[in-house]
């Protein structure tokens, strides 16, 4: 048990910071379209070139370093399908190159990255299917929740059945979503802390009022809890750890979304202010998370033989 980065992890963090400063961040996201962005192929290419997207070896059960890389990308508001590549791909029999969309069996409707996806990973109750290439062009959907989204109406039935346990893939999908939510929630919380520290009303900093302090402290506790559960889940890779991390991330998102906007006041309503770039993404991630099967229910059922 060790909560500190080792030398390799510190080196990765530093190299990631350099790359993300150049190729990600709020300014980059605005260049891509802000809350309705296009896919960031450029960022993906740079991450690929530097070897970050293959940081977890194929077949490796421990994807902690991959989760740390994803957290950094999400904190920098990166707009590429990296979490499936970093966290799910090592469980697949063959490498995937290029953007992938991950959906639940029977999914019909908008899906993140579907416009640019070279393949779909369809997670069912009994199996996992790999659909590639996509047979039709996918129409773009305007969601304004911070991600490129495409309308998936005709997911082909057959295609390739992957010889892998669907619960394993669902677990890694959940861990990926949890750590993505953590990165975005950290961005929103940090931004809000900065805002209420600078913003003065009643002749004092807003952040000096205890009501706001307590609200933000609870946000921090929630995000820290989700963060460490997600990193631990990436270490173990078990369905229980994955469901716990995502459940807690969703609970955290409920308070972070509401409170950061509340405390930033009308500034939080504006496109000019960066808050929405992170918070709206969190909402989209939560929707995607629930669509994979409610994690809280899954967690409860994993622990006990519950009948309802």
């Amino acid at each position, binding site marked *: 048990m060790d909560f500190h980065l080792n030398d390799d992890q510190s080196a990765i963090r530093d190299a990631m910071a350099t790359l993300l400063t150049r190729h990600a961040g709020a300014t980059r996201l605005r260049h891509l379209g802000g809350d309705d962005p296009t896919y960031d192929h450029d960022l993906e290419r740079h991450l690929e070139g530097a070897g970050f997207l293959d940081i977890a070896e194929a077949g490796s059960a421990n994807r902690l370093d991959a989760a740390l890389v994803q957290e950094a990308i999400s904190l920098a508001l990166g707009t590429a399908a990296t979490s499936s590549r970093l966290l799910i791909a090592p469980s697949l029999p063959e490498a995937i190159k290029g953007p992938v969309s991950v959906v639940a069996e029977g999914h019909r409707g908008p899906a993140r990255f579907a416009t640019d996806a070279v393949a779909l990973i369809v997670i069912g109750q009994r199996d996992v299917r790999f659909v590639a290439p996509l047979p039709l062009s996918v129409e773009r959907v305007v969601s304004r929740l911070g991600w490129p989204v495409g309308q998936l109406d005709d997911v082909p039935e057959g295609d390739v059945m992957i010889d892998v346990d669907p619960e394993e893939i669902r677990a890694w999908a959940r861990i990926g979503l949890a750590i993505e939510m953590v990165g975005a929630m950290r961005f929103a919380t940090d931004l809000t802390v900065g805002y209420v520290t600078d913003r003065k009303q009643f002749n004092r900093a807003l952040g000096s009022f205890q009501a706001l302090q307590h609200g933000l402290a609870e946000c921090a506790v929630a995000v820290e809890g989700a963060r460490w559960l997600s990193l631990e889940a990436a270490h173990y890779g078990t369905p229980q750890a994955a469901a716990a991390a995502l*459940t807690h991330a969703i609970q955290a998102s409920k308070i972070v979304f509401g409170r950061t906007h509340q405390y930033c006041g009308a500034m939080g309503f504006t496109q000019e202010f960066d808050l929405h770039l992170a918070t709206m993404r969190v909402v989209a991630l939560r929707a995607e998370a629930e669509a994979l099967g409610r994690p809280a229910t899954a967690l409860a059922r994993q622990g006990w033989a519950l009948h309802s």
Partner: protein
Amino acid sequence: MEFGWDNEHSGYRAELVTFLDKELPDHWHGETAILGSKANTEYSRRFAGLLAERGWLTPHWPSEFGGYDASPWTLAVLGEELWSRGEPRGAQYMNVNWIGPSIMANGTAEQQSRYLPPISAGNVIWCQGFSEPDAGTDLASLRTRAERDGDVYIVNGTKIWTSYGDVAEHCYLLVRTDSEAESHRGITVLLVDMPTAGLEISTIPGVVGDHSFNELIFTDVRVPVANRLGPENEGWTVVREALSYERVGSPRWARAAYLLDETIECATAEGRTIDAIAVEAIGVAKAACEAARILSYRVIDERAREVPPSPNGNIARVAMVQAERLVAEACLAIDVGNTLTYRSPSNYQLRKALAAGVAAGAYEVQLNLISRLHLGLPKG
């Protein structure tokens, strides 16, 4: 960074679990498992002795004081396994977690040889004389006076909400020895033997369960100067050090998770249907317990590295309170019927959750510290 348990600690856990499975079932039901109940306190003396025989009561203590120099992780495993069975050490977790270590760090050789062996043998109960009628959350404003008279202190004042005050053999008492000084200064720690002349103890029935509070009224109680722990007027530093890790010393999340299991077992054994809303609440509560666990581990990691205490302890404590409350909510959702029965696991959890945000430092004070020390928000 990595999260696996090493062989030493997973082996220790396995051995401990085997021991607990064998030792507890025949003696550990109903009233005995209600922390603070008379039966629990009586049982805890016997049980702590059993742990002590195996070297498991104070494994983390230095060998010179009867311990085995085990890592803070060993203590964490011990606490987790015991709290996840309702804490059969009863009141004794306080002795072994912080009162003993505080005496090791600040006590004289005589105090150490007198007070530590009974703690590591498991046959003594201590209480903590901290809160007063006008000094609760603002503990440093305490007013119980101790005036020096030759080689004794004369103590006058009132302590309140003193858990185990009615059964303890000793009290770790905070007194004011300099009334002119600024509130955090002028406080001294005295180790008071109980009972003693001039000390009147009365029980205050509580609503959090069988666990009762006590009021300790000191009227000209004479405490030898030799029983002072650390320098005069430096008691705040002494107690702050002692309690710095205590925020995660009681893994309340483990007991909450245990009571959640018990509540589900009760409901399913009776054939009650657990509906979808309750199932969702169980998942949310279980995840909150897990978050409290991992955030506590982060503090234990700091302790193992011997780095100074950080606001991570406050963060873990807040997460623990939230977990207790969410488990209480889930228990209520699972089984309203049994909650109406006193001593049902859900009824017990409801009461424990009530105390969670007050005992061992108010929830709001933790939030104040997090906002200032972790988030860096400006002072009000």
